[in-house]
């Protein structure tokens, strides 16, 4: 290991504050990147590597990414009364983020600070994304699945959804780049299913995470189970998930060069997070940074010197020269606020040769709509086709203690029903075996404690033993169900809803269609069969009065958010059917790229991060070409 290898996780001290918004506005940048999350950091790092001057505009708070800052998140989580998936991150009135706990139908009279996502319908999703430096990669779970080859042409194959303008094979090399950047632990032998293929000799950077004892217990019942769907028979098995978290490096990686895991980021040399320790807390925060977050990429980018970042700068308007035949972007106007405790801000416009919006599906759409760009859009699809995975939770009590509450949040699951001809009529899904018990669904184990202490009056050793026996038997199966693109699932803006800085809030309308619910119905039945096989007592209940209630075939289900938001500026083959082309280049604005899950025309049954990262690498290569052409002295432009 050379010195430089270990140096890459050093976050240059002061980098997050040394560039003022005023300086950024005076500078001439090759690229202006909006958003310091996974997509933005990969783009910035790649363009920085190609020698370009890049500035990242980040809405979140402005301290350096050091261990102290990171541990303050952890400490806030420990001390928080409500430990939802945003609890580690400070409340920021100036760049609000949705919290699942805020989920409710909103009307113009609802107090402004009670919510960020505006949902006016009866069904409300509790989905979230995170607006701190590092974005949602701070709280993501870290599963890093590829999409299936068939996911890229669902329309052609099954008459559903939309085709992508590129194929699995087009993206495959970039998947490998993303797997290197994120540090994915998996084995090819586990992942080569349903047509997923890898170049000969490829190995993942690190070996697979060991399956939990709970996974092994479930496998005892599931392996070999058969399901017949649309005349096809599927044999189920428990399989380990690829994970963007540090495990045992594979010595055969990169033709035998091996892989050096990237641990915790700080402004000084720290030695932590080189391997997952099993904190069972991937969401909302990995305590040791064994899980990838985009600060690892950002530290590299900022270390180059030609990449700068301005924090506490909320992109508020995309400035466009409407008289220009290419409708070029002329700047990004940001509101730079003083602190989390003040609504004071100053406005600056930052200018560059190309602009890349990497603010995640909802914020990209919100920003463009607030900038009146739908008017200039030929497809009128900005903010349309909003997607997220529809999650159905099922839970049961196993006959014997099975290790619940140990391991990473999820190590294994069932992936055999992600693809197949049944997708003509109903959604595919993946199944997560949750190592953290029923918490997501019920609030266990705290609810068990209150039951046993307050309702059953248990004390002392009996209390202790009963808790142990009861909680260690919990099994939660989370079904991640495909949700197809639908023009009527939308992000819009509405002048009646503004945040503290006067920026328009996103108005979200997401309905769960019958196609998805048919998948949910099968999921529910499959869960029952699995619980039967395992001798587990099915304890699943659904609440029809909840905002997440969805009726299907006379049954009520609760469909909860997956935090996998996508599809608000989908890619396609022409300006009439899409917002961006296959390189995530805007059809309507020559120097604008929209990079992130918003470009995905479908999400299949894999969480969006790895695919987003692969797309970002692919787009970075195109943006470099774009910049090369734009900056070439020969191409004098009017």
């Amino acid at each position, binding site marked *: 290991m050379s010195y430089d290898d270990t140096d890459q996780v050093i976050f240059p001290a002061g980098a997050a504050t040394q560039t003022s918004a005023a300086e950024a506005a005076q500078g001439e940048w090759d690229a202006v990147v909006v958003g310091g999350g996974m997509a933005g950091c990969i783009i910035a790092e790649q363009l920085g590597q190609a020698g370009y001057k890049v500035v990242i505009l980040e809405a979140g708070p402005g301290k350096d990414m050091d261990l102290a800052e990171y541990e303050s998140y952890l400490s*806030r*989580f*420990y*001390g928080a*009364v*409500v*430990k*939802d*998936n945003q609890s580690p991150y400070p409340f920021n*009135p100036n760049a609000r983020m949705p919290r*699942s*706990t*805020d*989920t*409710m139908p909103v009307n113009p009279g609802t*107090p402004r*600070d*009670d919510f960020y996502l505006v949902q006016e319908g009866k069904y409300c999703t*509790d989905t979230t994304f995170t607006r701190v430096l590092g974005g949602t990669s701070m709280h993501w779970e870290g599963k890093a699945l590829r999409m299936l080859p068939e996911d890229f042409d669902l329309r052609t194959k099954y008459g559903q959804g939309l085709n992508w303008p590129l194929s699995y094979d087009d993206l495959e090399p970039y998947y490998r780049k993303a797997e290197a950047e994120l540090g994915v632990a998996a084995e090819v032998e586990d992942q080569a299913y349903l047509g997923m293929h890898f170049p000969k000799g490829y190995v993942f950077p690190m070996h697979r995470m060991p*399956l*939990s*004892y709970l996974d092994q217990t479930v496998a005892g019942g599931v392996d070999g189970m058969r399901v017949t769907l649309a005349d096809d028979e599927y044999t189920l098995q428990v399989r380990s998930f690829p994970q963007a978290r540090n*495990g*045992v490096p594979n010595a055969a990686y990169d033709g035998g060069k091996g892989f050096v895991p990237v641990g915790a980021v700080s402004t000084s040399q720290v030695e932590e997070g080189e391997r*997952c*320790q*099993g*904190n*069972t*807390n991937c969401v909302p*925060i990995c*305590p*040791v940074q064994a899980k990838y977050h985009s600060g690892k990429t950002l530290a590299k980018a900022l270390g180059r010197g030609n990449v700068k970042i301005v924090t506490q700068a909320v992109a508020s308007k995309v400035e466009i020269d409407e008289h220009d035949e290419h409708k070029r972007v002329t700047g990004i106007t940001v509101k730079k606020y003083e602190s989390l405790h003040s609504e004071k801000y100053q406005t600056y416009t930052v200018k560059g040769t190309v602009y890349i919006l990497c603010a995640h599906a909802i914020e990209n759409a919100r920003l463009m709509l607030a900038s009146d760009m739908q008017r200039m859009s030929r497809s009128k699809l900005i903010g349309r086709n909003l997607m997220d995975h529809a999650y159905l939770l099922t839970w049961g009590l196993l006959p014997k*203690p099975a*290790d*619940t*509450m*140990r*391991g990473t949040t999820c*190590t294994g699951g069932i992936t055999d029903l992600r693809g197949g001809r049944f997708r003509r009529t109903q959604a595919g899904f993946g199944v997560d075996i949750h190592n953290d018990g029923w*918490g997501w669904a019920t*609030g266990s184990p*705290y*609810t068990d*404690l*209150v*039951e046993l*202490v*307050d*309702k059953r009056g248990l*004390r002392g050793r009996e*209390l*202790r*033993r009963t*808790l*142990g026996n009861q909680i260690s038997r919990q099994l939660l199966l989370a079904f991640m169900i495909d949700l197809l693109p639908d023009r009527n699932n939308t992000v819009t803006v509405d002048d009646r809803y503004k945040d503290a800085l006067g920026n328009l809030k996103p108005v979200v309308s997401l309905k769960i269609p019958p196609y998805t619910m048919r998948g949910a119905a099968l999921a529910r039945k499959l869960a029952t069969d699995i619980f039967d096989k395992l001798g587990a007592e099915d304890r699943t209940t659904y609440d029809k009065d*909840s905002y*997440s209630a969805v009726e299907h075939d006379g049954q009520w289900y609760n469909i*909860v*958010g997956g935090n996998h938001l996508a599809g608000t500026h989908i890619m396609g083959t022409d300006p009439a059917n899409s917002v961006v082309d296959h390189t995530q280049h805007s059809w309507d604005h020559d120097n604008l790229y929209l990079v992130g899950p918003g470009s995905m025309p479908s999400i299949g049954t894999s969480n969006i991060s790895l695919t987003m990262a692969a797309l970002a690498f692919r787009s970075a290569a195109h943006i470099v070409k774009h910049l090369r052409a734009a900056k070439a002295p020969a191409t004098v432009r009017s």
Partner: protein
Amino acid sequence: MTQSTDAGKQLRDFVKFSATVTGFSEFDLWGTGQAEGYYKTVLNQEGPDALQKAMASHPHTVPADPVVNSIIKLWYVGVWYGPELVGRVDVAAWTAPGRSGAKPAVPDYSRPEGTRSLAVSGQHQAGEDPAHGGQERKPLFVVSPDAYTEGLLWRAIGAHPSGAKAPGYGSWANPPVFED
């Protein structure tokens, strides 16, 4: 300990009593490092008389003294659930790690004053210590960040608190082990 011998004895009595009702040894309770903080929490929230009464009550009396229930839950998860929250499974659900979704009537101190102040009002500022500071009663708070990580619940279930005291890479592949 810096208190007078008398205060020291009261604290030791509190720990002795807590050992009976929690099923953990006095060694284990001292071993959390929370004994003093919890003792002060109960004193500040319920006052010395209520604490005295709770400690004198027979552990299996029906109905139980709700302060005893609060003390047990305090040791198990580091959360002060005031006696008025006895039996409130709905509240407990929203204080557990991992839960997500729309939240019922649970106070949330991470918000500015006046917003979503459902059961109680007031922002929990950094540095403010609800266990020791002020006279204001609060029915629900986490005593301190380490009160969470020192919760006995996790030992009772053969695990570790979500996000702390990790057991080590790959250990999760083994069957669970319960201490006695």
